[in-house]
């Protein structure tokens, strides 16, 4: 066998493989090429088997050349393999293409009630100012709803808030601690809380209250209040004003909310005030709270020693504040359970 012939054979094989690889269109074909030329029974191995027959002085040269060709071709096939794989994936993904402008498919979350959202907002702000949140009962005794709050039997204030009374088989109950009603305000918790806790204290009491009155866009037989109470050695009306200024500023997320106090009357505070706010310069004053300094008789009813403490109390209408916050014009919507309304929150 001619030596130049062997060299030529290697060249021909190398050329054939390179051509085949460049023509291969898929991974199956490429694998066939690998088996046919570089496999155990492939053409390259056939040439290796011929090596012993060539002259001794050329053996080493041809042996090295065969090895280097094998490495080159394997690299070539591997490289081509990667190319084909990439191409395959690319084509497959191309077929999976979608119209990204189609609408998304979402899991629909429910909606919290607007009063819940506003109540949380209020609670968060007051809690950050050190007020604890406490709850009271909706069924309350005549004593805590009226008597303990300095609203005596024939007081004009009982006239102002007509009350739902609980029917009782023992029709005429004289003991006001047993005579039950639906609380007309959250204020009974002032007396109940102070009976069990000593000053200094600061609490807010959110909850549902009831009034027997004709309903319209701004009146409901049930609504929600948030009572506030802060008592200490020297808690003043000026403190209340600062607390309100801070609260309303944060509640409405504004740099400043104008607050105005004017005279008001609630039997359980003295002095008593009404609180108005103004959200924009030039807009109307909005009445948002009743407040004042806790009346000495309320402290006395709660068992405090007279003259040892002073503090403020306030009541904010949750429904009213929510109406202002969201621009809702009819309080009855809150209790309509109309999803067209609820889904907006």
């Amino acid at each position: 066998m001619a030596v130049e012939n062997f060299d030529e054979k290697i060249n021909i094989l190398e050329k054939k493989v390179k051509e085949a690889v460049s023509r291969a269109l898929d991974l199956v074909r490429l694998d066939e090429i690998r088996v046919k030329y570089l496999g155990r029974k492939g053409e390259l191995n056939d040439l290796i088997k011929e090596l012993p027959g060539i002259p001794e002085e050329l053996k080493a040269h041809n042996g090295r050349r065969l090895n280097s060709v094998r490495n080159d071709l394997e690299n070539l096939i591997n490289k081509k393999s990667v190319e084909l794989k990439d191409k395959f994936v690319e084509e497959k993904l191309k077929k999976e293409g979608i119209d990204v402008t189609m609408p998304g498919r979402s899991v629909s979350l429910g909606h919290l009630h607007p009063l819940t959202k506003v109540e949380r907002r209020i609670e968060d702000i007051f809690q950050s100012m050190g007020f604890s949140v406490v709850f009271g009962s909706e069924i309350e005794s005549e004593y805590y709803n009226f008597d303990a709050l300095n609203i005596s039997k024939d007081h004009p204030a009982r006239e102002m808030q007509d009350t739902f009374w609980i029917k009782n088989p023992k029709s005429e109950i004289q003991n006001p601690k047993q005579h039950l009603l639906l609380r007309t305000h959250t204020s009974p918790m002032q007396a109940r809380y102070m009976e069990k806790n000593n000053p200094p204290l600061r609490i807010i009491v959110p909850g549902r209250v009831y009034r027997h009155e004709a309903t319209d866009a701004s009146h409901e037989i049930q609504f929600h209040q948030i009572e506030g109470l802060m008592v200490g050695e020297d808690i003043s009306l000026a403190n209340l004003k600062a607390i309100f200024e801070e609260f309303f500023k944060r509640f409405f997320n504004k740099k400043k909310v104008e607050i105005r106090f004017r005279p008001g009357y609630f039997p359980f505070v003295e002095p008593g005030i009404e609180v108005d706010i103004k959200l924009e310069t030039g807009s109307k004053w909005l009445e948002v709270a009743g407040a004042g300094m806790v009346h000495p008789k309320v402290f006395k009813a709660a068992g405090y020693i007279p003259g040892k403490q002073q503090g403020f109390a306030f009541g904010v209408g949750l429904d009213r504040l929510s109406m202002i916050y969201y621009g809702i014009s009819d309080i009855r919507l809150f209790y309509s359970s109309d999803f067209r309304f609820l889904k907006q929150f």
Partner: protein
Amino acid sequence: MKFSYNFLKKYIDIKLTPEKLAELLTMHSFECAVFRKTDNDSILDVDILPNRSHDALSHYGLVKEIATLTKKPLKKLKTKFREDSKIKSGDFISVSVTEKNLCPRYIAKVLTDVKIGHSPKWLKNALAEFNINSHNNIVDILNYVMLEIGQPLHAFDYDKLDGKKIIVRTARKGEKINTLDGGRYDLDEDVLVIADSKKPAAIAGIKGGLETGISEKTRTIVIESANFESGAIKRTSRTLGLNTDAAIRFSYGIDPNLTEFGMNRVCALIQEIIPGVKIASGKIDIYPKKFLLRTIKLNLDYLNKLVGENIKPEFVKITLESLGAKIKIVGKKLFFVTVPTARLDLEIEEDLIEEVFRIYGCMNLKGQMPVAAITIPKKNDVNFLINKTRDILTGVGFSEVYNYSFVGDKDISEDYKSKLIEIQNPASEDFKFLRPELTFGLLKNIKNNFRFFEKVKFFESGKVFSASASERLSLAGIYAVKESKENVAGRRFFELKGDLDVLFENLGITDCQYNSAVSKWWHPGRFAHIKYGENFLGIIGEVNPATLAVLDIPGRVAMFHLDFEKLIEIVEEEREFSPISKFPAVIRDISILVGRETKVDDVLNVIHGAGAELVKGVDLFDYYEGEELPEGRKNLAFHIIYQAERTLINEEVRHEEEKIKNALIKELNAEIR
């Protein structure tokens, strides 16, 4: 109350426009607005606060307030008149007051030669501004004086009074009275009356009687200016359903010393308006317990500490004096303030502080943050859990509603009513009882929302009420779908149950049991009690289609309701962290054929009761019923998790599995696949 701007200006010289006056009053005294403008007057609507109605519910009363605010002098009302010394009031009539507590003061005076006729035009016009009809000159003058100074007055026809006597007493049962306005009232011992020797002549402080009233023929009159106890007048006014201008004023309480001023003012006006009237000299004045001046201590340091301002002693002095108070100053900071009797509301130091503060100007107060140390607020666990629950439920698609706390008479079956709390004075028949469950409200929400939506998923948390437990916090949810066909039996039930699983898991409650049950209103095959150990936690179920038909609701409706207070207790109990095991768990699956009626819970009970102590958990992962299976059988497949505080070997797991399989075969006639 409505006030005439011109009327007010008669008593004080002010330059303020009606609008400015309204603003001044709003900021210092009472909320006030210009209600209506006429050609030459403005009517102000002033919301006199209840504690000031005794002194400010009249033009002259309000002018006193304006005088204090503007520092302008008050014009004196004419109260001087000439008496006829030849006749004496006491010779005409005698007065006795038997109910001294209900009538602290009674003044009577007699006028003769009265010519009853029309009032002058100015007087008619003045009354017309306040929607008071003109009757005759005497009655009109009495009404005018009430509007002017706030003292209600009455006049009797002297010749109609039997026995020439006036007796202030309670009525006797069976007595009746015809009133001036055409009413007829049955009286009893709770009603205070002004009687003559035979009959009631007036309902005290509320309305005069027809028989003794002023008529065209009247020549001699007895004028009454009296004071009545506020509570008695209010109760009677309410019981009889008779609310008059006089009753309103007495209901708020009036200074007994105003009666004399009222009598003098009336006599002066009558003499001015009706010529020829003779006013008998002297008066009958029954006033056993004099209403005395009060002196209240005011400490200026306390004033400024309570308000949080620095109001100067001089300002305090001027302000209180402008209210008619007399002041004695001890040292620099201690005032002894004697207040006029007209100000019934000024009783304690804080009342005086309010007066100074509002006249100083509430709006001038500067905010000042409290200096008290900030304390960390106590966490409210109930609130925390309610809010967490709300977030979880909205996370699985529920929207929150607030329904009414009431249910109607029609909503409740007769036998159930005795268990409920009933309202004595309900707003209407639809609000007669307090809701015993939240489900009533939720069910009512469906129909309206089905007009606009195919599905409704609502929840509510709130108080429920019962005669036995008073009030409890409850949680309920409703899932309603208009389409009643279902591709999987009980699909809506299981979707709702799945939502509850999410809730329980997130609250840290594991192992609730669902026991099938039967109850009115509910689907007999799709209703369960939810229990946690021995505790009854609530219910879940589909509403009986028959119930839905009655309510005119299409489709399927599943609901749950839970005793939220019980839930809170359990969350507290379960708040225990179990450490994650260092040793691997072994999971083996088991697939069985059982009878169709066998419940998953039955199988779980058998597995847990088989004595295999290494079992840490069992989960159903496949469920199948179909034609390929033997008649009346279904296929269930479970993952069973084995774990111990050591690494388990195959042999012991296999041993446990055998125990379970044997138990299933023996107790449920199961076929292991």
